[in-house]
């Protein structure tokens, strides 16, 4: 069971196929920018008020299911300023964990778009598989469920306004997360 995967309502009308394709392309393009470590271009996809959140996950009994309350420990609980600091580190020539570079791989699937009360914003569900290889034998894999809020900006482009990432792992099976999910 995964809370963010629960279907809130079944009567959310289908969005126009053109919009669905546009949002899919937006997420695929985002994944490719992350694969290529094109972080400045990636930051351009984010709304100024972005909330990028990857809370820690705990194994609990059903009667005590996690609420993911806002004040708990997380891997990321970032606004744009925090994300820019992380990007600034990754770009330093002495960011040792980045050289040789990681071979990134962000696979996005199960994309589902729902309308919201705001005609310029959509809730977007997706699953991601992030695979990272580095040097000869270093391999790390993260699988997660994402809940995004995608917004049509005034200039007509799509922006990512909210992202909540629920990891599959309670104990992160990686020494670091030197990417964005």
């Amino acid at each position, binding site marked *: 069971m995964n809370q963010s995967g629960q279907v809130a309502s079944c009567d959310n009308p289908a969005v126009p196929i053109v919009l669905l394709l546009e949002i899919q392309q937006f997420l695929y393009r985002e994944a490719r920018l992350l694969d290529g470590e094109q972080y400045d271009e990636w930051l351009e996809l984010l709304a100024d008020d972005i909330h990028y959140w*990857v*809370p*820690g996950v*705990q*194994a*609990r*009994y059903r009667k*005590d299911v996690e609420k993911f*309350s806002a*004040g*708990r*420990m*997380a*891997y*990321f*609980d*970032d606004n744009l*300023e*925090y994300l820019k*600091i*992380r990007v*600034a*580190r*990754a*770009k*330093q*020539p*002495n*960011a*040792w*964990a*980045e050289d040789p570079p990681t071979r990134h791989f962000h696979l996005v699937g199960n994309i589902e778009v729902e309308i919201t009360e705001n005609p310029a914003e959509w809730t977007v569900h997706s699953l991601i598989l992030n695979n990272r290889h580095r040097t000869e034998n270093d391999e790390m894999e993260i699988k997660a469920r994402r809940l995004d809020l995608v917004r049509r900006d005034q200039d007509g482009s799509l922006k990512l306004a909210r992202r909540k990432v629920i990891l599959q792992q*309670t*104990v*992160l*099976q*990686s*020494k*670091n*997360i*030197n990417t964005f999910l």
Partner: protein
Amino acid sequence: MSNLVVETTSREVPIVRTGEWVDVENGWLDRRIFWQDDIYALELERIFARCWIFVAHDSQLPEVGDFLTSTIGQDAVIVSRGEDGKIHTFLNSCSHRGNRVCFAEVGKARRFTCNFHGWSYGLDGGLKSVSRPQSYDGKSNFDKAKLGLHPARVESYKGMHFACFDPAAPSLEEYLGDFRWYLDVILDNDEGGIEFIDGNIKSHLKCNWKFPAENFVGDSYHAPWTHGSALIAMFGKAPTMRAERSYHANVNGHGWEFGLDFIGNAATLNSPQIIEYLRGQETKFAERLGKVRSRMVGSLSSANVFPNLSFLAGHNTFRTWNPKGPSETELNTWVFLNANAPQELKDEYRRGVMLTFSPAGVFEMDDGENFENCTSVNAGVVTRRQMLHVGMGLDSQIDHDELKGNVYQSQINEANQRAFYQRWADLMGAETWADVPVR
């Protein structure tokens, strides 16, 4: 790991020759201590099953029935608040067939009941009931009083609960010794003490547990180099560490390397509010702790309580390095702050630690690389024969009017690392606690 199995058949019979493994006097380490199965197995016996291991802070288990699960070495334990209001720690393994009796990391319970045959234990680990008790006849030597979950001793220092499986171990007070005086810098700089923020972060590193523990006990040397990228990203340059105003101090293998700069660590949290809070409390800290210790509250520093509880003053993070094998370690990270601090500071500390010292943090990201590679290279037999140098500051011990324990000038030093390995060797070579010297 298959290479380890091959290695096992060809190596010498394990004999405890700790003088060979650790040469503290001249500053050399034998790399086998980071790799060999038999040495690791002995660590579980003589370090983890013997020492006081941090299990919980008081604020994590405020009410009767609150519990969390943890490990002491590789022994799975339940830590719970009993009906007597006290913290109990006992094995998470049923006395009947050994199955785990608790599968949640945290929660609230009245009983821990085994899924296998329904044996049910109380919050103190005592066996309360079993299914079909009538099936145990008079000859079956079934005595509930003797079938509880094996308990550890639990003792506390200012809200920090430690557990120990060795009945012969000294009290926590003796075990910590004068290091308690240093711990007060974070645990008691305010009359309200500290509290832990909800939740924790766990991650898995393919490294020997001692590399990160020794890193925190004394290695400020690595900070400007390993973390140059983060420091430049945040400040445009690395901060200055001054030999004349900085120290290594250790007691019984516990160590703290620190400057007296007051806010060096805290400054990396990207929060003016935290700096403002610390500045506002400066006089009060000095009243409670004296001038010297008050300058440590948020300073450039790192520390480790032997064997595996590390912390950073200023960042306000505790973490444990839990061994999962000679080259496997689980890192558990928490954030704390003064219980009396304004609520809005909670998020500042929490987000600041996530930005700096979580697996996605700009500092920690480069640490895991180092710890893992320092470990994995030892698969090479010739590599393993090469001693590691840990000889910085051999001549740096000083007498200090105020600072307690063994004190050394300059935080760019390896005195605390040597003290850590000395304590490790003392315990590894000792048959009983009676043979372990006070350091």
